[in-house]
C-alpha cells in the first residue's frame, strides 16, 4: 500500500499538484455532471420547495408553507404515505426472499441450470410498459386468462386491479415476477461460498436447515443487504408500473409517492409543492438507508475483516 497523499503534499510538491490536476481532468465528465445535474438542481429544488411556483409567474417565497401544507392539509398525503410504505415493506422483502430461495434451488446440482436461470431472468428485462400491457390483459376481469381459468373451474372472477383491497398485493406480485435480476446476483454470490464451510458444518452434525441459516445466509449477507438497499431505494420511487397498471386507482389505493409528486408537478403545475414532496422523499430514503446500514452490523457478516 503506497503512503497516503496528504493535503500538505499537494501544497508543497509540484508533482502531487500535477497529479491532482490530471486526476480531476479525468473525472471531469462526472464532476461537471455532478455540479450541473446533481448539486445545482438539488440546491434549486430546495429553494423551489420554499416557494409557490406555477411555471408561468416567477416563484413567490412562502417559507415552509409547502411542507406544513403537505403534512396538515394535503388530503392525499397520508394515504399516499400509507400506500407507499405498504408497497415498500411488503414488496421488497417478498421479492428478495423469493429471489434468494430460487437462487438456492438453482445452486444445487441441476441439469439445465442456465436454462432455468434464463427463464427466470427474462421477465426482469422485459420493458415495464410491456409488463404492464401483459398483466393488464391477463388480469382483466371480463376476458383475462387468469379469471377465464378460474371461471372455467367454477370459481368466481377476482377483481385483481379493480378492488382497492387487492390492487396493492397484485402490484407486489407483478413486481415479484421481475425478481430475476436478484436471482442472478444471489446465485453468483452463492457460488462463492467455500464448500469447506458446508463440509465442516456436516462434520459438526448440522442438517440442511441449520446449514442454510448458519452458513448460507451469513456468508451471503453482504449481498442480501446490497439487494435490500437497492430494492428499498427503488421501491420508494416506484412510478411506471402503478402509473400504467392502475393510474393510482382504484380509490387512490395505488397512488404512490412518485405518482402524487408527478401529478403535483406536471398536472397541477405546483412546482413548489412537488419540490417539497421530493425533499420529503429524499429525507425518507436517507433515513431508511442509514438505519438499514446501522442495524446491518448485527446481521451482516463481512469475512476476514476486509472492511
Amino acid at each position, binding site marked *: 500500500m503506497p503512503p497516503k497523499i496528504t493535503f500538505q503534499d499537494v501544497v508543497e510538491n509540484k508533482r502531487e499538484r500535477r497529479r491532482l490536476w490530471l486526476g480531476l481532468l479525468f*473525472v471531469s*465528465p462526472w464532476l461537471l455532471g455532478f455540479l450541473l445535474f*446533481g448539486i445545482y438542481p*438539488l440546491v434549486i429544488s430546495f429553494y423551489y420547495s420554499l416557494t409557490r411556483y406555477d411555471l408561468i409567474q416567477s416563484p413567490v417565497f412562502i417559507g415552509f408553507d409547502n411542507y406544513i401544507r403537505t403534512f396538515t392539509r394535503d388530503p392525499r398525503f397520508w394515504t399516499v404515505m400509507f400506500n407507499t410504505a405498504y408497497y415498500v415493506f411488503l414488496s421488497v422483502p417478498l421479492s428478495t426472499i423469493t429471489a434468494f430461495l430460487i437462487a438456492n434451488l438453482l445452486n444445487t446440482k441441476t441439469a439445465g441450470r442456465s436454462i432455468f436461470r434464463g427463464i427466470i431472468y427474462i421477465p426482469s428485462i422485459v*420493458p415495464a410498459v410491456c409488463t404492464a400491457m401483459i398483466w393488464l390483459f391477463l388480469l382483466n376481469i371480463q376476458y383475462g386468462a387468469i379469471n377465464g381459468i378460474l371461471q372455467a373451474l367454477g370459481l368466481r372472477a377476482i377483481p385483481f386491479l379493480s378492488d382497492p383491497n387487492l390492487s396493492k398485493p397484485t402490484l407486489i406480485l407483478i413486481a415479484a415476477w421481475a425478481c430475476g435480476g436478484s436471482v442472478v446476483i*444471489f446465485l*453468483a454470490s452463492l457460488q462463492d461460498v467455500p464448500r469447506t464451510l458446508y463440509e465442516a458444518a456436516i462434520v459438526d452434525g448440522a442438517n440442511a436447515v441449520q446449514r442454510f441459516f448458519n452458513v448460507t445466509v451469513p456468508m451471503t449477507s453482504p449481498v442480501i443487504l446490497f439487494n435490500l438497499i437497492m430494492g428499498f*431505494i427503488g421501491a420508494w420511487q416506484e*412510478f411506471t408500473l402503478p402509473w400504467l397498471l392502475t393510474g393510482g386507482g382504484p380509490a387512490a389505493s395505488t397512488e404512490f409517492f412518485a405518482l402524487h409528486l408527478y401529478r403535483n408537478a406536471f398536472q397541477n403545475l405546483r412546482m413548489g409543492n412537488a419540490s417539497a414532496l*421530493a425533499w420529503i422523499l429524499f429525507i425518507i430514503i436517507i433515513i431508511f438507508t442509514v438505519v438499514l446500514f446501522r442495524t446491518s452490523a448485527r446481521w451482516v457478516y463481512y469475512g476476514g475483516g476486509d472492511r
Partner: protein
Amino acid sequence: MTTTSQALNPSGELMLLTRRYRTTRTITSVLKYFVLIVLSLSFLFPLYWMVATALKDDPQVYTLPPILIPSPAHWENFIKGWTFRYNFTQFAINSIFRYGIPVTLFTVVSSVISAYGFSRLRWWGRDFLFILCMGTMMLPWQVTMVPLFITYKKLGWLNSYLPLVVPSLFGAPYFIFLLRQFFMGLPEELSDAARIDGASELDILVRIILPLSVPAMAVVALFRFLGAWNDYLGPLIYANREDLFTLAVGLHRLNIAATSMGTTGNAQPYLMAVSTMVTLPVILLFFFAQRTFIEGISMTGLKG
C-alpha cells in the same frame, strides 16, 4: 444386501450411499425439478400469453374458457398492429437512433474516462470524490426532476431528445462504479511499464486498458441501451409529441386507443402484437449476449 460407496452429494456432503439414502435423494430431486418446472412455467406464461394473443382474432381472444393455442394463427396482426393506429416504425427509429445509441455511446465514453480517473490514477481527494459519486445514487430522480425540467424549458429543450441525451455526456455513477471495479482488477505493472516508456495517461487508457476492458464496456453498453429502450418516464416528460414518441410511450398510447375500442377491431391482438415486437429485441439480445448479461449483473452485486 447393502451397497456402500462413498460419494459427494450436491452440497458437498460426504455420505454413505445406502439404498434408503438413494430413495430420499431421488424424491428430493424429483421434487426439486417439479418446483423448478412449475416456477419456470409461471414465469413464462405471461410472455407466452402475450405472443398467443398477438396471433388471435377477436372471437378467439374473448372465448371462455380461454383458447391456449391460437388457431388459425393471424401472423398479419404483427404488420397491422404496427401501423393501424400509430406509425411504430417512427417510434422504433426514435428509440434506437435518437435515444438508445447516442445515450449508450456517450455513457460508455464518459464513464470510462471518469472511472479511469477514479481507479488507475492516485491523487489527493480521489476517494472522497468517489464516495460523493456513489452517494448520488441515493438521490431520487424526483428531487432533480423539477429544476431540470424548468432549466430545459428555459433552454427550449422541451419536446426534443436533448434532455435525455445530454446528461449521458457526464458519466453515470452506477457504470463508473462497475468500470472502476474492473479497472482496479487489472495489474498495475501494465501501466507502470508504459509510463516508463513515456506514454501519457490517455495513451495508457486507449492503448492498454481499453483493449482489456471490452467485456466490462459491453456490460455497460448493454445495460445502458436496455435502460433507454425500457425507459418510460424520461420520454413521457421530455419527448411527448407524436413524432417524438419512443416505443414505450407509443405502446402506452396504443393501449389507451385500444381500451377505447373495447372488444372490437382486433384491438387486443394488435396491442399484444406490438408488445411482442417491443419485447422481442430484448429477449433476442439476452440470448445472444447471455454471458455478458449474467457476468454484468453478477458484477453489480458482488462487490456491494
